[in-house]
């Protein structure tokens, strides 16, 4: 591990990758530095590098060790970090995402409300009042990690994961909120709503609609506002659970 000023650490990640750590925790300042390096690498890739992948506080730079010289890439990335403008604006896009909260679309809304000691409507109000930043995509295809959740809505993960979380599910896990892009995989977060916007579409050249650095807000919507057929498909797949 080498230090390079201001808490920058270069961590080894094998013969085909390097991890550049730009801060300590999950916060907007570190995020801006991460975005600064990531965008710089996207706009002007270091010769030989393959991909740059942002995390909360780091950027992973990968290359094909058969074709590229790892030492050169490390040196060039280090130079790039030195040249990072301290307060480069994040400059992400602003995106409003309609969400149908509760019911079959958000089966965990009531549990989240009960735990937070709030009415479900108040959970929705606070969640939709948030101004979120896409910190990163990852773990699952198209999963969007958002920073900026109202701390009163924070909630430990589910003790046992849901077997199949549908695409577009908006969920809370720990102090974060996120959206399941691809869907179909198990998930440990509490699902409080769902959007009909196709955030993940492998038919697109770039399957993920949202990118790290984008600004997101949620707009409460009713199922009637969704495109024809969407709500019906949801209801068919997940009938409303009735008490008793």
């Amino acid at each position: 591990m080498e230090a390079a000023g201001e808490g920058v650490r270069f961590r080894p990640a094998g013969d085909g990758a390097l991890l550049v750590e730009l801060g300590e925790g999950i916060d907007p300042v570190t995020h801006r530095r991460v975005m600064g390096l990531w965008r710089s690498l996207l706009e002007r890739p270091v010769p030989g590098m393959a991909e740059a992948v942002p995390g909360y506080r780091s950027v992973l730079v990968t290359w094909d060790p058969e074709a590229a010289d790892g030492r050169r890439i490390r040196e060039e990335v280090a130079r790039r970090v030195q040249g990072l403008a301290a307060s480069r604006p994040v400059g992400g896009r602003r995106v409003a995402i309609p969400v149908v909260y509760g019911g079959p679309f958000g089966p965990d809304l009531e549990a989240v409300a009960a735990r937070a000691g709030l009415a479900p409507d108040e959970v929705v109000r606070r969640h939709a009042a948030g101004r979120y930043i896409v910190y990163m995509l990852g773990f699952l295809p198209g999963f969007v990690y958002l920073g900026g959740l109202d701390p009163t809505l924070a909630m430990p993960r589910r003790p046992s994961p849901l077997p199949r979380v549908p695409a577009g599910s908006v969920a809370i896990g720990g102090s974060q909120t996120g959206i399941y892009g691809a869907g179909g995989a198990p998930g440990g977060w509490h699902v409080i709503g769902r959007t009909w916007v196709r955030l993940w579409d492998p038919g697109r050249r770039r399957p993920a609609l949202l990118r790290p650095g984008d600004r997101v807000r949620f707009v409460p919507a009713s199922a009637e506002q969704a495109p024809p057929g969407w709500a019906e498909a949801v209801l068919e797949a997940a009938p409303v659970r009735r008490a008793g």
Partner: protein
Amino acid sequence: MAALVVLHGGLLTTVQDAGRPGHLAEGLAPAGAADRFMLACANWLVGNPAEAAALEVTLDGPVLQASGDLVMALAALEGEWHAGEPGQALPLWEAVLVRDGTVVTVGAVRQGVRAYLAVAGGIAVPPVLGSRSTHLRAGIGGLHGRALAAGDRLPVGRPAEPPGRLAGRRLPAHLRPHRRSGPIRVMAGPQADAFSRRGLRTFYNARFRVSPRADRMGVRLQGPPIQARDGYDIVSEATAPGSVQVTGDGQPLVLLAERPTTGGYPKIATVITADLDVMGQLRPGQWVRFVEVGEQEARQALAERRRRLEAVRAWLMSQPPGRPLVVATPAGVYRVD
């Protein structure tokens, strides 16, 4: 168009090529063959480019019927395949001419876990994001993003040469990959400093057993718990291929082709690129050890892998397009001398 009709999918048979890099920042791991060395060998045997789409067979293979005359080869550390029922054995590591209508059964993979069945012309399913590789968790690529099942029909591309001229190529035993008994070579991981001296000693000195929970996402290992200094949580960050995560129970999990692209477990080590093929062949119940190497050794190991691959390619390219030596037909298998 020639095709393979699936009569039985086998345990987990997927279409794989070299994978689809370029989407890590969107949360999508590249997928692709777990043993790229073996994929290349199988493809070259039938005259394909090294990275053409082939079938990755897991432990127990599929039953397939040729629609059209096809040239096929099966690469495996140890395994078997046969034509017809009850069946006549077909040779491994050899391009076989399989006549229209012949039923071919890939049996058990007896060493390693994965075998590669290549067809001249390649499996011609439509590419998704530039690759035909099946990504099971994302549900894309291959055939509808899933493993093969009875009733599927896999289109086969047009081979570079007519079937009669491709068949007969054979890779001699000394050029085939063999099960390697040495330790898996790793470099220090991004969070090696998150482990106590004792934890690091445990990782490098202990033997670990491959858990039954080993799949295309990763290989989970069982052994003495590896001690971390301050718990097993880090701020989530992107993962490199071959990352060795240590999960909350102190057990290592080596990430492979369908890895989660980010993760919040500390990574004690990273398997070097040259040893990823070996990782992809670890069999549940098998014992493994790890040894730390430096950058230079990793580079030498990769150069050695390239030399071995080049030797395979050179041998197969130098073979004149022979007569078909083994021909499988619906009526039986015969050898042409």
